């Protein structure tokens, strides 16, 4: 059989399609819980509580200091000894999400800190309470900083998810590897998997680009109305 035909056959086969679905599912669920974990960590970092701060430091130290592969195998093989038995899919998601949370926390923190202290003070002086300052001043601006890099995390996670093949989750790479090892047609199997990966990352990048344009553009809705004099006179203000 011709290489191209076999590749096409793989791409359209049920087993590859399900592998691709699994990869997409792993990615979306892991990033989702990663965001939840990251948010909790970021808030714990902002709160002035020594015990919480230490827990967060140890968490970040562990999850950034060890390979993701190590973490996946750890969750799958070691946790059962402590009575926590998870399916291979759940183990993969738990490890990926906990790992992802460590990185997303940093993105969230950068977003929250992108809103200057002066603005928070001004809002406070306008008699807003703390939650109102958060809701109306900090979060709307922080989101514009947070959302674009989270798009990047999706692309990263799509590739990272291949690692859970090590605990026998039937995701795209495992499917391709299994298909190839039965007939040694690695080129075709990997090309089929590659097409899926590239298709997904292309779609993610496309979405991310649009989100970035939104994040940058929504503030400049009516730039067209501005006269040039005003723009010139404000230029030096921004570099201040």
């Amino acid at each position, binding site marked *: 059989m011709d290489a191209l035909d076999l590749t096409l056959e793989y791409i359209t086969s049920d087993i590859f399609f399900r592998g691709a679905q699994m990869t997409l599912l792993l990615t979306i669920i892991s990033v989702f819980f990663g965001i939840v974990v990251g948010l909790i960590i970021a808030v714990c970092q902002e709160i002035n509580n020594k015990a919480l701060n230490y827990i967060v430091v140890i968490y970040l130290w562990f999850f950034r200091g060890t390979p993701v592969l190590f973490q996946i195998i750890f969750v799958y093989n070691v946790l059962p000894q402590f009575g926590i038995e998870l399916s291979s899919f759940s183990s993969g998601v738990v490890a990926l999400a906990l790992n992802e949370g460590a990185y997303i926390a940093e993105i969230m923190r950068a977003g929250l800190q992108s809103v200057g202290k002066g*603005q928070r003070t001004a809002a406070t*002086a*306008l008699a807003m309470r703390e939650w109102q300052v958060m809701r109306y001043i900090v979060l709307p601006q922080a989101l514009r900083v947070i959302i674009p890099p989270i798009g990047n995390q999706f692309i990263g996670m799509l590739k990272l998810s291949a690692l859970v093949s090590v605990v026998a989750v039937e995701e795209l790479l495992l499917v391709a590897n299994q298909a190839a090892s039965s007939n040694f047609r690695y080129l075709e199997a990997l090309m089929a998997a590659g097409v899926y990966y590239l298709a997904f990352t292309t779609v993610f990048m496309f979405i991310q680009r649009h989100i970035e344009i939104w994040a940058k553009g929504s503030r400049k809705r009516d730039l067209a109305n501005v006269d040039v004099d005003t723009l010139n006179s404000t230029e030096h203000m921004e570099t201040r």
Partner: protein
Amino acid sequence: MENDIKTSPDAIIEAHQIRKSFGPLEVLKGVSLNVDQSKTIVIVGPSGSGKSTLIRCFNLLEIINAGTILFEGKAISGDDKDAWKTRLDIGMVFQNFELFPHLTALENITLAPKIVKGISRDEANEKGIKLLEKVRIPEKENSFPDQLSGGQQQRVAIARTLAMEPKVMLYDEPTSALDPEMIKEVLDVIQQLSQEGTTSVVVTHEMGFARRVADRVVFMDHGEIVENAPTDQFFSGDVSERAKLFLEQILSH
């Protein structure tokens, strides 16, 4: 000393022997000052003399370590969960404007009235547009802060503070971050408000403005009030040596 507070019938803010430290540094060393209803006080003094800290204590952005601050005869000092209620009555304008960059000029003005006071959107907008007219930039209602010059931004910031209808306006070096050609447009607005009877406390280095607008001039140095005199007397030279020296330095250029 502490319980020997004289309440004056004209005073809206009475600060009595207030002290404030940042770590080991004592920034206010027992400051007493009355702010009278409908009057304008200008506070001058060298950098680091505690001027800004003093007015930031009035709206509880800083919490004093000792002393008392009365607002309309009621003590506001101490860290108070209801601090925001005090801030409803005491508005502040900042050196760096601190407009919210994600909101238009009009939205900057209407946000707090809407979410803090619960005023309807239409009413807030109508009032906001009137305030923009008052600060003389009605055409900028849909502009974002980064599309405005410094002087325009500060005037929006003044309108934003006025929208809450405070009983006292505090200005923390409102023109220090502005280019010289924009200082006048901001000072003119502050002067107009003052002449309309808005109780104002202005920390500034603009001595010409102080002479024109102030009812009293307060000179601070090293965390103390050195001089607190009616404007005419302050500029006539009938003041302490330290105040004289400061005036000579600041007026000589």
